[in-house]
């Protein structure tokens, strides 16, 4: 029996064995190499994605915190400004009030002083008028002697002085 196949030949049993071998090797390689390695690659990819996601969330959180703090800081600044503004306003108001009061008081003092002066002046004037009229009466009585009615003379002199006072 021929112990060699021909060089160029199609052998049915070789075909069948080749298919079987290919299937077996396919299953073996898939189980032993491809599946574990792809599993581990996918797992790693998943992990990397997770890490990236985590990083993104952390970043977002940080951004949120930052904006929050910025807002708070701005708020605090505003409040401080408001306080300062209020204080300044109040101080200004106080100042104005104090000045007003002072001015009012000063005016009152001046007014009173003027009134006093006026009163004094009037008093002095009256006194002077009385003195002058007394003196004039005594002088006139001395001149005219006894036939002069004293009250008549007083009245006359007063009118005279009044006319002077009005003129002056």
């Amino acid at each position: 029996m021929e112990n060699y196949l021909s060089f160029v030949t199609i052998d049915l049993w070789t075909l069948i064995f080749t298919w079987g071998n290919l299937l077996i090797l396919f299953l073996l390689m898939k189980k032993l190499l491809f599946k574990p390695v792809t599993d581990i690659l996918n797992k790693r990819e998943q992990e990397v994605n997770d890490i990236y996601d985590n990083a993104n969330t952390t970043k977002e959180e940080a951004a949120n915190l930052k904006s929050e703090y910025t807002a708070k800081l701005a708020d605090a600044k505003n409040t401080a400004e408001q306080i300062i503004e209020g204080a300044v306003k109040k101080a200004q108001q106080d100042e104005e009030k104090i000045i007003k009061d002072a001015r009012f008081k000063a005016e009152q003092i001046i007014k009173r002083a003027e009134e006093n002066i006026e009163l004094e002046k009037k008093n002095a004037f009256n006194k002077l008028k009385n003195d002058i009229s007394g003196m004039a009466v005594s002088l006139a009585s001395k001149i005219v002697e006894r036939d002069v009615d004293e009250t008549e003379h007083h009245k006359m002199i007063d009118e005279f002085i009044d006319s002077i006072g009005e003129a002056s």
Partner: protein
Amino acid sequence: MDITLITRAIVLGASAIGAGIAMIAGIGPGIGQGIAVSRALEAIGRQPECKGDVTTTMLLGCAVAESTGIYSLVIALILIYANPLVNLIAG
């Protein structure tokens, strides 16, 4: 003289000549691959950064273009090693 022996001899001789003639087909792929390589070299000269891609594609194309030559080789091999014509002769 056995007539079948002479017939066999003639068939074998003709097969050998046929195998030789079949291998003339090797000219085609040779020229074709030469053209392909020259074009690939031009491409590499124009764009040296594509050298890897061009080389891979060229090898692929060459190997495919070679198939006609390979067919003739298979025919030659059949004629020499697995001659179907000899078996046609009875005896």
